[in-house]
């Protein structure tokens, strides 16, 4: 079937989405053209607005369209004694869903990975240093991923905490709740063993 330049452009544009190849992009494009023009127009407007107006919170670096995100702006949390360090805005969502944590966040937007050109400056650690120097801050919770790079990042920030006299804690890693030991991989299991606690 012959297509037009505009339809080709649309299909190509959909391919920026993760996991979307030529086939899926074509399906999306034709679906909107055939059945949902209104939805398509709305998608284009919201997409445009979000790309233009969503930026980083000036304090914790998570996504927001305001200069401070809701969490940083919340009066009950602004003077919290805890800052939780995570790698991505989705990690903030995940922790918020537990409703266990009432402190502030700092979102690194990645982890230390010099081989990919990501060092301390790229993670905004100077900004974190500033935030940590507030008198109210007593504890930094390191919730980076349990990968080599996540550990390196946690360790680097722990060092910054030390020189500022702030307590640094690392989230526990190990066997998933409801899991069975025989199905756990060796590396996870040895981490769980080395991080065991008195009961």
């Amino acid at each position, binding site marked *: 079937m012959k297509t037009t330049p505009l339809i080709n452009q649309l299909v190509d544009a959909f391919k920026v989405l993760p996991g979307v190849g030529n086939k899926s992009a074509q399906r999306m494009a034709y679906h909107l053209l055939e059945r949902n023009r209104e939805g398509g127009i709305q998608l284009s407007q919201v997409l445009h607005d979000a790309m233009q107006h969503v930026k980083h919170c000036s304090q914790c670096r998570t996504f927001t369209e305001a200069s401070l995100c809701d969490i940083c702006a919340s009066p009950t949390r602004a003077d919290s004694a805890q800052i939780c360090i995570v790698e991505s805005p989705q990690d903030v969502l995940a922790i918020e869903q537990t409703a266990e944590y009432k402190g502030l966040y700092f979102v690194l937007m990645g982890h*230390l990975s*010099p*081989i*990919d050109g990501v060092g301390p400056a790229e993670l905004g650690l100077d900004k974190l240093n500033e935030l940590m120097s507030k008198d109210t801050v007593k504890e930094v919770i390191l919730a980076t991923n349990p990968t*080599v790079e996540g*550990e390196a990042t946690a360790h680097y920030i722990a060092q910054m905490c030390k020189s500022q006299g702030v307590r640094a804690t690392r989230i526990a890693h190990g066997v998933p709740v409801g899991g069975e030991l025989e199905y756990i991989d060796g590396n996870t299991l040895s981490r769980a063993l080395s991080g065991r606690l008195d009961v």
Partner: protein
Amino acid sequence: MLRVEGVVLHRRAYRETSFLLDLFCRESGKISAVAKGVRSAKSDRKSLLQPFQLLECHLYGRHELKNLGSVDALQPAMQLQGLRLYCAMYLNELLNRVLPKEEPCPQLFNHYLSILQQFRQLDDSLNEVEPLLREFEFALLSELGYMPDLCEDSHGEVLRHDGHYMLSADEGLVASADNQRSFRGEALMLVNARQWGPESMQCAKRLSRQLLAPLLGDKPLKSRELFAPFRTSNS
């Protein structure tokens, strides 16, 4: 099918659920491979496919980019932390940048593994880890054919204790006057004998920087930034 022993130098996300890997292998050198479906929640290969752990990998395919089949750990994970972890990351960045693909260098590989093992016994101080880094850099430079002879100068004359020498890319060590860029003969001899003290460490570092510079181009190694806090507090 190729069965290799190696470590992950670098991994990055690829498509929805895969990783692109650069592996450093004992018998095959640096190899690139795709690990498909590894990032999904139920795959336990993602815990293995991380830097520094010695693995046995099965690779498939005839192209430069292989497909990764099964993976097994040959050693427990290196649980390196702090400066030694940053140093290990530095080695990986260095190897990833300068090692050509698919050129076997089993000696260098064994040297790399032995350094990782030695890191576990050391303290987090630059004085302890830097000699290991320099020795590895020199081994790497020799492997690539960029390491000059540190016993004699460009005219084949044995170095003199009180002599001064400049490094020339083509000729090796060239006798010179005492200046900012020259190396003291005695320091070079200590470096050659791997006898580490403040002067030989300083000399080795300058040598290594100069020798690596043409291989690294205008993009310095990023991992060096991680050492900065240790420089101000420990040395």
